[in-house]
């Protein structure tokens, strides 16, 4: 089974990379860019039937640092 984990910086955590990309987009002439936040997409190919709690544990123990990041799990059954 395919599962996608989206890891994002929590609101309020400064994202210097997002800010730099924001400035770069403006430098390219794109208008109306209000904010840019950069996250991470992790695709997992897991044994069928892997339960949600196990995937959540993977996120909490390694895939995300919950001090600074939140995560969402997509595609789990």
């Amino acid at each position, binding site marked *: 089974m395919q599962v996608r984990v989206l890891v994002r910086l929590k609101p309020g*955590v*400064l994202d*210097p990379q997002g*800010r730099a990309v924001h400035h770069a987009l403006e430098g390219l002439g794109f208008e109306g860019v209000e904010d840019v936040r950069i996250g991470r997409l992790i695709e997992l190919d897991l044994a069928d039937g892997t339960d949600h709690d196990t995937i959540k544990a993977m996120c909490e123990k390694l895939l995300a640092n919950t*001090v*600074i990041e939140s995560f969402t799990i997509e595609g789990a059954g």
Partner: protein
Amino acid sequence: MAFRAAVITFPGSNCDRDMAAALEAVSGTPAIRVWHGDADLPDGLDLIALPGGFSYGDYLRSGAMAATSPIMRAVVAAAERGVPVLGVCNGFQVLTEARLLPGALLRNAGQRFVCRTVGLTVEGTASPFMVGYQPGETIRIPVAHHDGNYFADAETLDRLEGEGRVAFRYAEPVNGSARDIAGVLSANGRVLGMMPHPERAIEPAAHPSLGGADGRRLFESILAALSAAA
């Protein structure tokens, strides 16, 4: 008393030799070198040092992969028994990822790698690492990092300050760290994580922009604290 210090090397560590050299220079005893894949630490350690570098190429997050390595289970167990642990730069990142210290190290606010000698204000002195410093004094120690921007929520920051667990603060703007925090202590004061490199400041150098000896006192402190306890 022979001083038994271990320096852990992860793939991508690059300050491990500096750390071992500093420990030997101050203690007179060669440090024991330990590889990340080892499951066990040597017995009877007086200090465990996690060096700077880019362990596992900073994959996922700085320090995240190293925190899962076999030796870190042994380091966490040793820290829980009260063995002093020092994490410098990437070592600090590993200690936060291993949850031995609170908070996290984010990308520098200015996006740039910062490599220079900076002023630090000494704060928390209730630690075997800190006995050689005076509260409020300013020392100079080199930094060299890209992810040194200390972050923790306001409640955690208040707790760290309230419990005297901020070891050092930057005396000048460096990386955007919350409340200028450069180093933090565990609740029992026996785990210290810091972004600046004390092992690069153990002897005066000919040129004032190089070296300095302000980091030496950190290693002398731990030796003195152990001798006093013995």
